[in-house]
């Protein structure tokens, strides 16, 4: 299910403003890649270009290519709606649909393509997805209760279950733990480690310990000054980045000298 991702000379604009410039990176299948860097350096913006979610903002556009397994996401004829099916996303704050039950939340994406999914298939899928998100045991007795009644950490795992249920090839996570307490954070980190066996995962995080704990490779984004575009400074094995980074800026950031 998981695929290699290649971004080549990617420039991201908001109107005439160049937000992120010249990103070239390659992401291995079935690995966790963490993107770190100071606020406003464009790591979230870059993440959103991987499933074309940035297009929600009017005036946003992209130059360069993003290939998944050799298929350019920005080629003419590619539909952003279809892209988002293949590349799932989990957001900074848990966002289950407040008017839907837990089970309906899990099925929300699936129902878009398959209205007439039969009851037992649906139940199986709910269970599988919730198990995959380590949430099954906590909610199996209240699947018909609203998803907004869960704790923040459970809601975030519900969102992961919802993303996983449509069987994407890639999973993007945009600071998935920034709104959670330490224990919930740990649960999500464990989950990421498990999901790695079937999905290519890219996670944006502000927390360097988290990057060190969960990722195989780490990319460092930076911007020289306000108003300048953000750039990918370097990307390497996580161990290398945190012990012997290739660039001075990376070392400064990791050792806490700024940002």
């Amino acid at each position, binding site marked *: 299910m998981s*695929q*290699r991702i290649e971004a*080549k000379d990617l420039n991201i604009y908001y109107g005439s403003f160049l937000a992120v410039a010249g990103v070239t990176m*390659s992401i291995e299948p079935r690995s966790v890649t963490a993107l770190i860097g100071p606020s406003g350096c464009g790591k979230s913006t870059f993440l959103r270009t991987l499933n074309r979610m940035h297009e929600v903002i009017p005036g946003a556009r992209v130059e360069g290519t993003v290939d998944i*397994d*050799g298929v350019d996401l920005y080629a003419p004829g590619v539909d952003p709606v279809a892209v988002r*099916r293949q590349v799932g996303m989990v957001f900074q704050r848990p966002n289950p649909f407040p008017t839907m039950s837990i089970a309906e939340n899990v099925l929300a994406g699936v129902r878009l393509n398959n209205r007439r999914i039969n009851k037992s298939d649906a139940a199986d899928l709910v269970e599988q997805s919730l198990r995959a998100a380590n949430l099954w045991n906590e909610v199996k007795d209240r699947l018909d209760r609203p998803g907004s009644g869960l704790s923040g950490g459970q809601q975030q795992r519900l969102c992961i279950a919802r993303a996983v249920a449509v069987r994407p090839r890639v999973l993007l996570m945009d600071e998935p733990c920034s709104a959670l307490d330490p224990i919930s954070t740990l649960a999500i980190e464990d989950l990421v480690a498990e999901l790695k066996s079937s999905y290519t995962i890219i996670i944006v995080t502000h927390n360097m310990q988290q990057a060190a704990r969960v990722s195989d490779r780490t990319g460092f984004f930076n911007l020289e000054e306000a108003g300048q575009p953000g750039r990918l400074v370097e990307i*390497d*094995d996580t161990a290398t980045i945190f012990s012997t980074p290739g660039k001075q800026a990376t070392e400064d950031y990791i050792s806490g000298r700024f940002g």
Partner: protein
Amino acid sequence: MAATDTTATGTAPPVGTSEDLQAALSRVDPVRKRKDRAMRLVVYLAFTLAMVPLVSLVWSVLSRGSGRLDAYFLLHSMRNVFGGMDAGGAYHAILGTLLVTGWAALISVPIGLMVAVYLVEYGTGKLARAVTFLVDVMTGIPSIVAGLFAFALFYLAVGPQKAGIIGSVALAVLMTPVVVRSSEEMLRLVPNELREASYALGVPKWLTIIKVVLRTAVAGLTTGVMIAVARVIGETAPLIITVGMTASINRDVFHENMMTLPVFVYDQYGRGLTSCAPGAVDCVPTINFDRAWAAALTLIIIVMLLNLVARAVSRWFAPKVRG
């Protein structure tokens, strides 16, 4: 692993998967896609549909009303005008509208403003909640009921009669909640720092309210009042039953019928077509309709001017305090 160059090597996925992906990326279920397109069309159509009456109405009023809207129309009453005479104007109606609405503003602005002051600066507990609720409810009073109320009020006090002031009371009932709502909003925008700074210097509360709070919010308050006036100036139904109609100028709001612009439109329309004697020189069969359209245009121009000036006031003079 260190060599993360741009060309994919090593674990290249099987070719078949790549083609599957290509297919998956370029195709959304056609049914879903069609539905999406159809709904977009529906939404665009809904908007266009709403523009049709607006454009048609504005065009009708402009094209049919502008012919007769001139200085003569604005400066003459309907006194001694009858039949299809090519004469007569809306001067008495414009005057009546200004007087009746002016008195309505005179009644409702102080009350509305004080209610807003009460709600923002003093109001707590049950009374404040009741007032808020009732102001909301008051915005929903049908205008004809407000007219009946004013009629009933004066009927009990001075017996059955018509006068401009009765219409003013009816309009005031409709206008007050609008003034309260907008003023309340404006007063809440005044930052608490201003009040606290004033109290800290020993300025009593009432003076703080008048000199600091109301002074700061004055542009917003003016805008709110003008919009409220614009809202009631076109009211017709309550004026038909409280102020009545007349062909002559009446400057006395306390006695006798008055003509007002909206009622003038209604009255002229109701007169219908005039039959002209064959070969009559000074006779226009559609004269009543023409006057109705011209008066409608005058009314719309007044309402739009009020709205524009109100917006201008809020844009140019409002201190943009933080909410």
